[in-house]
């Protein structure tokens, strides 16, 4: 055996390399089948950052398809409900520059919920079919109502209503919507206390 190797060094080296290549190739091939990732993990990560309103304002039928589109290279600034915060988070994840929200797809609004004016509802079930998260309760010729806790404020039920009895109202009002705000930054200006007192 040793004699054979010393006699044909070139052939031996080639054989050894070939054998190594086959072994590792086999290993890699096995691993790629065995440990194949299901779906697109990047799209999943993006999807968790999106607000899940399922409103379709981005032009895709729901948040998941938009996440997939972003993973495939679409712009990250098409989500008005998420606003600048979501854009920043996406930019952070994808390591790209954050951009301002694309106004073509809508503007950032305060969180809202749908409200059915129940006296006017005729029970047509059109809004129930439109709701992407099954947050409207009712049956044919029965009054419908919105489960406010589950409503994402996507607007999709407003358009189909034949009697225009659905309003979008702020999710929280009054004291419940109030929270402490950051102190206004006065560090650089107005440093002399007596200046401010005179005002």
């Amino acid at each position, binding site marked *: 055996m040793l004699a054979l190797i010393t006699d044909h060094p070139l052939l031996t080296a080639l054989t050894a390399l070939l054998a190594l290549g086959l072994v590792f190739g086999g290993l890699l091939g096995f691993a790629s089948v065995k440990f194949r990732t299901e779906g697109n993990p990047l799209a999943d990560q993006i*999807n*968790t950052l*999106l*607000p*899940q*309103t*399922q409103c379709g304002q981005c032009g895709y039928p*729901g*948040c*998941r398809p938009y996440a997939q589109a972003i993973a495939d290279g679409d712009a990250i600034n098409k989500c008005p409900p998420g606003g600048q915060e979501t854009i920043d988070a996406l930019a952070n994840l994808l390591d790209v520059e954050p951009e301002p929200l694309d106004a073509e797809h809508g503007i950032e609004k305060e969180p809202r919920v749908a409200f059915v004016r129940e006296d006017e509802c005729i029970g047509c079930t059109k809004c129930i079919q439109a709701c*992407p*998260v*099954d*947050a409207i309760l009712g049956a044919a010729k029965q009054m419908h109502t919105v489960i406010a806790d*589950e409503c*994402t404020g996507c607007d999709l039920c407003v358009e189909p209503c034949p009697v225009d009895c659905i309003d979008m109202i702020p999710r929280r009002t*009054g*004291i419940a919507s*109030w*929270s*402490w*705000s*950051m*102190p206004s930054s*006065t*560090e650089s200006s*107005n*440093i002399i*206390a007596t200046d*401010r007192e005179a005002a």
Partner: protein
Amino acid sequence: MRTVYAIHGGIHPPEEKHLSHPGKVLDAGLPSELILPLSQHIGAPAEPIVNVGDKVKAGQLLAESQGAVSAAVHAPTSGTVTAIGMRPVPHPSGLENTCICLVPDGADEWITTRGVEDYRAESPQTLIQHIRDAGISGLGGAGFPTATKLLARDRCAIDTLIINGTECEPYITADDTLMQVAAEQIVAGAEIIAHILGASIILYGVEDNKPDALKAMQAAVAAQGDVGDREVMSFPTKYPSGGEKQLIEILTGKQVPSGGLPADVGIVCQNPGTAVAVRDAIIDGKPLTERLVTLTGRALGKPCNYRVRLGTPISHLLALSAFTPGSKQRLIHGGPMMGFALETGAVPVIKTTNCVLAPTHEELPAPPPAQACIRCGLCAEACPASLLPQQLYWYAKAKDQEQLEKHNLFDCIECGACSWVCPSTIPLVQYYRAAKSTIVEARQDKQRAERSQARFEARQERVEREAREREAKRAARKLAAQKKAESADAEDPVQAAIARAKARKESVVKSEDVS
């Protein structure tokens, strides 16, 4: 004698407690209107059960508690409900909230109340229900519903009850006064709470700047003889020793774990006022309708402690204590460290109103504008929760929520010691409060998004399944029709007729072709 432990940090602001003559109580009398907010506590607002125009008696239930964390509202005197609507309430936002307005008839006629004859014979659950029905929420700080707090007994073994008579915040003397005038009631209430909790030890913590209250409490505890391990403990005055977690460490040396509750180390804290309210609810069957409020500050001619019916407008109390507003007059609900400014005196006294402070401009000037942080580190020395206020400040400014949570922002008790020592007068606590609410909101949004996603996916799946089922049905129908057609081909007269007609037509065509 137990050992008194020291806590990290703390400050010694001017106490100014003598101003309001602790130990003396005046009655605030009946105002022309009582305003009772439905939300005087942490948790869900109460649900009104009276209508406008109803005549009610004192002690009658006006609004019942909703859900696990909520407290009921009762009429503090007899009179007529004149409105249920939006009124300004004591809240840092200065916004309005739903209130029940009651115009007293002057008779102050009570409903018949019946207490529990022997509370020791009752089950803890029954007593907790009595406390819930009496609408009691913590009278010291945040106003957590007491019944809910006592339910901690179901989760952890509680061995110690601490009655928090620290009252470490400057100016306030309501608890000091209560301990001087109602020590027996406090002790009686504490015994009831300890019975409910199954706690064998009761510790009364009183700062050493209240010698009269300390004496009164010691006398009251000694008077009840040997009923178990009871001790009135005095410890050096320092702000904020009255913080729940701080007091527990001072009295027992135990530290409440980060993010945990005192119940996790077998301890429950209650305010002396809450103890009295529990005693009144169990022994007399009376709901919580009044409390002691300190009216103090140098803009008042006669600062004092008042026994006040809940819902009494603060303007009524200011008039009683000879208020002369100066220029740039501020009104503060609570103390100078943790209180908040009121925009109007029209707001009512609520269950958590321990003090109304009306300082002159010279006494408590508005803080000068904030300057740049010079990294002196005084705030870290002052922090009673051993946090790093400076780091938290940078992260709050950078909105770095991950780092804020890593640096235990949620262990901050918002005592204001860091802001008080800050040589650059940076409003640190406001940064922390804002950062906390942003993080809480972000968490809620995340939960909401997860739920929406699950519902969306469930719906998507259902829609697809229905479509598949429809398709399958259609295919089945088509198949059945085809089969029927095939099998019926021979016998079906219609088909046969059509076939004959076709054949005839074809033959005609053929014959035409031939010709």
